[in-house]
């Protein structure tokens, strides 16, 4: 029993680690789509910033510098997307696809050019990366039965970016629903003309949204490379950008619901890791592929009905064209 509890706690603990990049990425997507710009380039931004973070961190020996560079890189990609989908009113999904492909190609070429190795950056030693921090008072609370374990395993012992991720969500909520920028953001995603006639710049707002998204993706990517892992390896984001996108829709573009979605997918992933090879009573051993596919299957099932229609911001994916 207690053993089961511990296992559950450990799985939850893993979920935290796994869903952190999903949170950053989906929050990035939230800003973009709330402003009426669809962003399936999340994956690419994650990958690129993961690579840049790892490179910078190993060159300058500091995770913080790595983080800064990652954010910068991700923002550049965000601006490319902006140029395509805001200024030149191109197809947003295509621009996203392009960004994904570009990222996967560039990371490979640059690792070769910079580190003479295809798709791998040098391993980060010690504090060249974000290490997990032990919260104060662990050993005190430790003595309290269940609470102690929960505090030690679950709450404490993550790296700073994990905590940042969970701090981000309420912040995002506050920005979107309580600030002037948030009001305008929601408006421009629903009816850009109304925003325009109110004397506001539709394009400006959308660029801002994408920029914020860029920053968040940058952090997410950095987490993957220099916090969760200790270097960049090719294609290391492995589709998390898309999962984040699913979480965004799944959470109906609402920060807290999106958080829930991210955590669910993170939990599934963590669970999958633990279910692998385990022979269950009736079912027997579950094939790796099935476990791998579970998050996607689940998303589809949920999209199929349980969450009814997920209604995106009205203007999303439509460039704002005033005159012909």
């Amino acid at each position, binding site marked *: 029993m207690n053993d089961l509890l511990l296992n559950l706690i450990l799985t939850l603990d893993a979920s935290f680690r796994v869903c952190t990049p999903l949170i950053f990425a989906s929050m990035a997507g939230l800003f973009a789509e709330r402003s009426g710009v669809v962003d399936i380039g999340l994956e690419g931004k994650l990958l690129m910033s993961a690579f840049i973070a790892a490179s910078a961190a190993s060159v300058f020996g500091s995770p913080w510098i790595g983080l800064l560079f990652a954010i910068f890189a991700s923002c550049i990609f965000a601006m490319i997307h902006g140029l395509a989908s805001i200024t030149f009113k191109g197809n947003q999904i295509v621009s996203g696809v392009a960004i994904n492909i570009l990222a996967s190609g560039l990371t490979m070429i640059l690792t070769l050019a910079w580190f003479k190795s295809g798709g791998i950056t040098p391993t980060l030693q010690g504090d060249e990366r974000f290490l997990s921090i032990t919260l104060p008072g662990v050993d005190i609370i430790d003595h309290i039965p269940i609470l102690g374990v929960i505090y030690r395993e679950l709450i404490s012992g993550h790296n700073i970016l994990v905590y940042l991720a969970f701090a981000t969500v309420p912040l995002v909520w506050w920005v979107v629903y*309580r*600030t*002037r*920028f*948030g*009001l*305008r953001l*929601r*408006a421009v995603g*629903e*009816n850009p*003309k*109304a*925003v*325009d*006639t*109110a*004397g*506001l*710049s539709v394009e400006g707002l959308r660029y801002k949204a994408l920029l914020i998204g860029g920053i968040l993706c940058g952090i997410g990517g950095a987490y993957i490379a220099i916090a969760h892992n200790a270097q960049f390896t090719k294609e290391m984001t492995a589709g998390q950008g898309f999962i984040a996108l699913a979480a965004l829709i799944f959470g109906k573009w609402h920060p807290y619901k999106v958080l829930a979605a991210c955590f669910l997918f993170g939990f599934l992933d963590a669970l999958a890791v633990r279910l692998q090879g385990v022979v269950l009573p009736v079912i027997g051993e579950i094939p790796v592929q099935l476990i791998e596919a579970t998050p996607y299957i689940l998303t589809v099932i949920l999209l199929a009905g349980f969450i009814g229609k997920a209604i995106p911001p*009205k203007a999303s994916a439509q460039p704002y064209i*005033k*005159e*012909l």
Partner: protein
Amino acid sequence: MDQSNIAIELTDVDKHFGAVHANDKVNLSVKTGTIHGIVGENGAGKSTLMSILYGFYQSDSGQIKVFNKKFRATSSRQSIEAGIGMVHQHFMLVDNFTVLENVILGSEGGALISESLDKARIELTRLAKEYGLEVELDVPVESLSVGMQQRVEILKGLYKGAKILILDEPTGVLTPQESDELFRIFEALKKQGVTIILITHKLREIMNITDYVSVMRAGKMVAHRQTSETNPEELAELMIGRKVLFNIKKSKAKSGKPLLIAKNLEIHNEQGMKRVSEVSFEARSGEILGIAGVTGNGQGTLLKALAGILPLSKGSIKILGETISPEITLNPAQLRNLGVAHVPEDRQKMGMIADFSASETALLGYHNDKEINQGIWLKRSSVKANCQSIMEAFDVRPTNPDLKSSSFSGGNQQKLILAREFERDPEVLIIGQPTRGVDIGAIEFIRKRIIEMRDAGKAIILISVELEEIMSLSDRIIVMCDGEITGTVDASDADEATLGMMMANALISQEKSNEAQL
């Protein structure tokens, strides 16, 4: 006139949209504190001109003075700051925002919205009192009636301190009562020294409330008049450049057997809201049945059900021998085959496809017809020929089947749609807003054709927000409100007042139901 009290002065304002020369060296000056009307055919350039003044579009050349200060707006912001407010032809509201949120958008004050909301609440209640513009502040605007939404638009302007208020075809969607209400508000505003520019197609309104009127045609400003010194006939002539007769004379109807009998219809709209209940009527061959009512009181939904787009929840429709019921449904295609033609209320969204060529738009709904299909092959040649002929029949200009539907003017688009529906000689015609947003010249033509169809023994069901249209065309009139029939009158003894009352007293019950919904 003396410069001191000039609110707006436009000189040689010029604007192109791609190939379209929307405004051609337009001059206009508006006196402070007056109500200034602007009339003109569709596409004359009225909205464009005003949008330039409001900073929504930028003019190619020409100069603008506001309160005698030179002024060039690169965005609406400058115009707002200069004291200009505009209520657009199509409202600029964020549907899922509350009234309050819509009003403060763009002039929130602080970086946090909470206090701006409080500030706005106080200010709006004041304005509401002062001008009688009561609106519920905390409901999403999508749940408000059109009339109410318009009030929100006006409030937006006033809240931002507008001294000049532009209204683009504000009454297009209102009942007579609502319109009169609006005009009362105008008077109140005028007293406060607010300058009002009113764009409209309805000369009655011009005559009733404006002090001055300017006429546009094909992007040019063709005349300025003091309202007291002109008359509808003159204005109409200036607008389209020739005489028009207003009420078409039509012979007495020789109504025959009923071709469509509706019994106790109950209908839900696309969103699943009940919009029509307990509606029964019959449409006879050789007569026009007019359905009057404020938009959004169920006629639209009824129309869609008659055309097979929406299913019935209760009741039955006997039509040309077939019976439609909640169980048995006929889709639009099947109804067309029976001989039912449908001119949709919203031509842009339903009646046509902007990017399609005229010939393809003329094919909508009939793409399965034998004569144009040979096996799996759709014979484009015959499609074109067919379109050519109906375009000639309805004098759609330019008469070119290959032209993109969107490159036709609204009126011509409407004619094309009517041609498509009329030319296949149907038995029953269901017609919605045949002349909405269409200029007088086209209106005259279209109405004549509808009468012709009647005299050819067709059964015609006509829905229009234009009471004047209903009255001049219909042989029998039923008035709908809040999804129910609130009156049936014979055209001969119908007058605007009584119909208006039927629509209006219903209005009260509508208010009730609104409250009920909240």
